[in-house]
């Protein structure tokens, strides 16, 4: 299994066979552009530049996301944002360039991490219960609102949790360093067993 799974998480073209038990399902998400944007959130110039370059309002409230149809800006820390862009025609390098141009002269850093992370989707009415098998996060509180996100742990893995389609409902996107993706997938797949029919 491992060789197969490995290729799933490092190659954009192949996807793991999704698991669907009705009450909960697990699948991989297509590769997307991911960029870390560093800069102090209390620096107005930084915020303005980010908004200009992304067309999104910068989420300066801790653990929140602002998004539109194709992209998300995610709060990771008081000087750190993650920009995720679901646009298969764009290149990561160009996106980095665009951001760097906008941030010219502002204390900042822009780093392409598109290949650093893999994203999985856990969905269905029992998704929360499955999540709770691995994370100490109070999911209901931390993700009460559709625009909430949270970084936490799942088993040994550090994950970023956002909500599919910005809905505080039944779908979660789990972003993880891809070298932990096989671990995360295996853990979740086992945790979902209970819901097999």
């Amino acid at each position, binding site marked *: 299994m491992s060789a197969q799974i490995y290729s799933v998480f490092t190659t954009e073209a192949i996807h793991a066979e999704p698991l669907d038990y009705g009450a909960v399902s697990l699948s991989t998400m297509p590769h997307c552009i991911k960029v870390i944007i560093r800069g102090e959130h209390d620096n107005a110039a930084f915020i303005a530049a980010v908004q200009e370059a992304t067309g999104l309002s910068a989420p300066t409230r801790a653990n929140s996301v602002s998004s539109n149809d194709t992209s998300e800006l995610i709060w990771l820390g*008081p000087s750190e944002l993650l920009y995720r862009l679901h646009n298969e025609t764009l290149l990561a390098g160009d996106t980095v360039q665009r951001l760097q141009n906008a941030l010219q002269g502002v204390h900042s850093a822009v780093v392409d991490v598109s290949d650093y992370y893999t994203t999985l989707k856990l969905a269905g009415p029992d998704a929360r219960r499955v999540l709770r098998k691995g994370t*100490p*996060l109070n999911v209901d509180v931390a993700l009460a609102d559709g625009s909430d996100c949270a*970084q*936490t*742990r799942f088993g040994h893995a550090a994950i970023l949790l956002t909500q599919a389609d910005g809905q505080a409902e039944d779908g979660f996107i789990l972003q993880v360093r891809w070298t932990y993706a096989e671990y995360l997938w295996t853990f979740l797949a086992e945790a979902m067993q209970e819901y097999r029919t």
Partner: protein
Amino acid sequence: MLLIECPWCGQRDQTEFSAHGEAHIARPTETATLNDEQWGNYVFFRSNSKGLHYERWTHDFGCRRWFNAVRDTVSDQFLVTYKPGEPAPDAKQLTQQLSDATSGTAKVSGV
């Protein structure tokens, strides 16, 4: 199992954090002028307080920020957490706060 208030992310489980010992130990700037003992003091010697302890934590599995906390090392109760760079909260006041909450076992040393 502690419940720790990250100054940014709010209350999170202890397993998201790690502890890093005493806070507010400034690194000496003119290191060349220090004798062995002064330098040794900075590197190794610690208050190790029984009572209020000013200490450092990081939110490893969250925002990855360092921050400071004051905790009573007897009851393990956190009195306050605060961002780096913010001044150390007053020990007297905290002791009062602690004795209000418990029966006043805390003792202050080595801020």
